[in-house]
C-alpha cells in the first residue's frame, strides 16, 4: 500500500495534478473572479477541451516515435472541409463534421503513407505537408468564399461551440454556466483514445512500433500500416480540434490552427508521453494542457501582457523537454519513475509496461 502511494507520488501526472490544484487555489485566493462561471471558467474549459484534442493529435504520432509538425495545418484543412460542407453544400452539422474528419484523416493517411513508403523522417514529411497546406488552405478560402470565411452555421453549430450547461434545462432547472457543452464530445474522444491504447491489440502494436520498429517487425506487426494508422488518427483528431475551434469562434477561417503546434507538444510531454515513442498518457495530456491554460488564464486575470504568456509557454516547454530527457536517462539507468516497471530496452516488456500504465 505504502509503495503504491510512493509510486503514485513519483508520476509526472500526479505532480501535474498537485501543481494544478495548488495553482488554482492560489489564483482563486488572489483573484476570486477566477470562479466566474460564464466569463472565466467556461472559456477556460472550452480551451482545455479543444487543446486536449490537439494534444491527443500529437500524442498518437508520438506513440510511434514520430511527430506531426503539420497538426495546425491539418486542423485548418479539416475545418475547411467542414466549412465548405456547410457553406456550399448545406450539409447538416453531423454530416459536415464527419466530412471534415474524413478530410483530416485522408491528409493524415497520405502523410503516414509517404513516411512509411519513403522512410523519410516524420519531421521532414510533416514539415513539407505543413507548407503545402499553408498555401492550399488560404487559396481555397479565397476561391470559394467571400472575405475568406465560411460563415453558414447549421442547426446545433452554436450550441456545440458556445452553449454551456446553463442552456441545458430540465424540470425548470438549468446546468452550471461554467461547463461548456463541448466537453461531452471531447470526453468521448478521450475515452476512445484511452481504450485504443489500453484495451486493444492495435493500440499495443502502435506503442511497440514506437518502442522499436525492428522488434515490432520481428513480432509480426505490420509497422507500415501502424505508421499510416497513427498519422491518420492524428489527422482526424487535428481536424476535430479545428472544427471545435471554429464552432467556438463562430466561423471557419484560414487562421484556424495557427496556435496549435506548440501546444500540441506541451500537453503530451508535460503529461508524461515520451518523445521517443512507446508510452502515452491521455490523462497526462489533459493535465499538461490544463496546467498551461490555467497559468495563461491566471496571468490574463492579473492583466499580464500576452508576450509574457508566450515567454512563459516557451519556458514551460523547455522544462517539459528537459523533464522528458531526464526521464529517458533514468529509464536507461533502470531507475524508472515507476520502480515496478521494466526498462524499455526490452521492447516486448516495454510494450507491456506501456499497456499497463496508459491511464484510461
Amino acid at each position, binding site marked *: 500500500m505504502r509503495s503504491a502511494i510512493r509510486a503514485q507520488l513519483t*508520476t509526472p501526472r500526479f505532480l501535474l495534478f498537485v501543481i494544478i490544484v495548488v495553482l488554482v487555489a492560489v489564483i482563486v485566493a488572489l483573484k476570486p473572479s477566477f470562479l466566474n462561471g460564464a466569463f472565466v471558467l467556461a472559456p477556460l474549459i472550452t480551451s482545455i477541451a479543444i487543446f486536449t484534442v490537439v494534444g491527443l493529435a500529437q500524442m498518437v504520432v508520438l506513440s510511434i516515435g514520430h511527430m506531426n509538425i503539420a497538426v495546425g495545418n491539418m486542423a485548418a484543412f479539416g475545418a475547411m472541409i467542414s466549412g465548405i460542407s456547410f457553406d456550399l453544400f448545406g450539409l447538416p452539422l453531423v454530416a459536415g463534421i464527419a466530412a471534415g474528419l474524413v478530410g483530416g484523416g485522408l491528409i493524415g493517411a497520405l502523410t503516414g503513407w509517404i513516411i512509411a513508403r519513403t522512410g523519410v523522417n516524420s519531421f521532414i514529411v510533416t514539415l513539407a505537408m505543413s507548407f503545402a497546406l499553408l498555401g492550399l488552405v488560404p487559396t481555397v478560402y479565397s476561391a470559394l468564399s467571400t472575405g475568406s470565411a465560411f*460563415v453558414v452555421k447549421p442547426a446545433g453549430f452554436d450550441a456545440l461551440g458556445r452553449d454551456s450547461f446553463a442552456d441545458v434545462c430540465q424540470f425548470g432547472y438549468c446546468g452550471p454556466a461554467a*461547463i461548456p457543452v463541448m466537453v461531452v464530445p471531447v470526453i468521448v474522444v478521450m475515452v476512445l483514445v484511452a481504450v485504443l491504447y489500453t484495451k486493444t491489440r492495435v493500440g499495443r502494436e502502435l506503442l511497440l512500433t514506437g518502442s522499436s520498429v525492428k522488434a515490432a517487425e520481428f513480432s509480426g506487426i505490420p509497422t507500415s500500416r501502424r505508421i499510416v494508422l497513427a498519422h491518420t488518427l492524428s489527422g482526424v483528431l487535428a481536424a476535430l480540434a479545428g472544427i471545435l475551434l471554429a464552432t467556438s469562434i463562430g466561423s471557419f477561417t484560414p487562421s484556424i490552427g495557427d496556435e496549435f503546434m506548440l501546444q500540441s507538444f506541451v500537453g503530451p510531454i508535460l503529461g508524461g508521453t515520451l518523445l521517443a515513442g512507446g508510452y502515452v498518457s491521455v490523462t497526462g495530456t489533459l493535465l499538461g494542457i490544463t496546467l498551461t491554460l490555467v497559468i495563461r488564464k491566471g496571468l490574463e486575470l492579473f492583466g499580464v501582457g500576452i508576450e509574457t504568456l508566450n515567454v512563459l509557454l516557451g519556458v514551460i516547454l523547455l522544462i517539459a523537454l528537459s523533464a522528458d530527457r531526464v526521464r529517458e536517462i533514468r529509464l536507461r539507468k533502470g531507475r524508472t519513475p515507476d520502480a515496478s516497471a521494466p526498462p524499455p530496452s526490452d521492447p516486448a516488456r516495454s510494450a507491456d509496461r506501456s499497456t499497463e500504465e496508459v491511464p484510461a
Partner: protein
Amino acid sequence: MRRSTTLTLAVAAVAVGAVLLSGCTPQSETAQGGEATGLDSVQVALVPGGPHPYFQPWIAAGEAAKTDFGLGGTTFNETAAWDQTKQNDVINSLVANGYNAFGVFGVSPTDINSTFDNLKQSGIATAALGSCPAGDTNDADFCLSTDTETAAYKAAQATIEAMGGTGVLAHLTGVNVDSNTQRRIAGVKKAVDETNGAVTLLPDVTDIDTDLTTAQKAVADLLASQGSEITGIVSTAYNPAVAAATAVKESGLPIKLVAIDDDETILAAIEDGSVYATIAQNPTAQAYVGSYALAKLASKECTMAEPGAIIDSGSFVVTKDNVATYDDERVAAGDQLMKDFDSEYLSC
C-alpha cells in the same frame, strides 16, 4: 493500472466538484435589467483588434474620457496578435475584473457579433469601434467607425484627380477577410468606374497591413514589376501607405500617391509634395465619444434610440493646402459627433 485509475478518478472527482461548485440555477434567472447608476460606476475597456499604430490615440482619448466624464475607470488592452480567440480571452478576463462597458475593434468581422451577443446577455454595454461587424447586422449597441467605403472612394477620387483623370491605378489595402477591406475595394472600384475606362485598376494588393516590413516588401515588389506603368497608387491601409510614401519618393518614379491616416512620414511627404494627399480618420473621437456613449448605456442613464446604429466617425482629405489646419476640422467633427449622440443617437 491501479495507479493510473486512481489518478483518473481523482481528476474526474475534481471535475465533478467543479460542476457542483458552479451549481445549477433556476431556469428563470437572468442577468438583465438593473437600476440606473452613476457614470463613476462604469469601467470602460477599449480593446483593439491587435497591435497597430491606428489605435494609439485610443489610449489618451480613454484617459481623457475618464477625467472629463468622471468614469469609474478606463483601460486599453490590446492582444499581441490579430486573433479572435485571444481577443475573446482578453474581453472575458476584463469582464471578470469588473469592466462593464466595451469598445471593441473586432478581429474577425464575421465572428464579433457572437462576442457582442455574449456580453449583452450579461447586461454589458458594447460598441464596435473602428470596424463594424460583417453583414447587415450589428449586435453591439452601436458601431462608431469610419465609413470605409466613402473614405476609400474619396481617396481614389483624389488620386484620379492627381493623375489627371487617366492612367493605371494600384490599390494597396489590408486583410482581405475583413469586411471593411471589401468595402474599401468597393469604394475604389466605384471611383474608377466613374472614369468610364480612362483609368485602369490593377488587381488589389491585399493582406499587406500586418506590419511595416510586410508592406515595404510588397510595395518594393509592386514598383519593381509594374512601377513604370503605374501612374497612381491609393493606399487604404496604414502600413502600405507609410511604405509607399517612402518607396515612391526613393524610386523617383512619377507616381501620384494618396495615402491613409496622418502618420508623421505621410504628413511630411505631403508637405514636400511627394505624396499628393491622405485621408485622415478620427480614432480619437471613436474612443472619446465612444467611451461617453458606452458610459451612458452601462449606467442605464440612456438607451440607444436605434439599437445597433452604425455611425460614421468621419474621414478628412488632407492635401498640401490644409495640412496645417485639418486637425481643427477633425476636432470639430468630434464635437459634433458628441452633440449628435446626445440629441439623436441616445435616448435618455
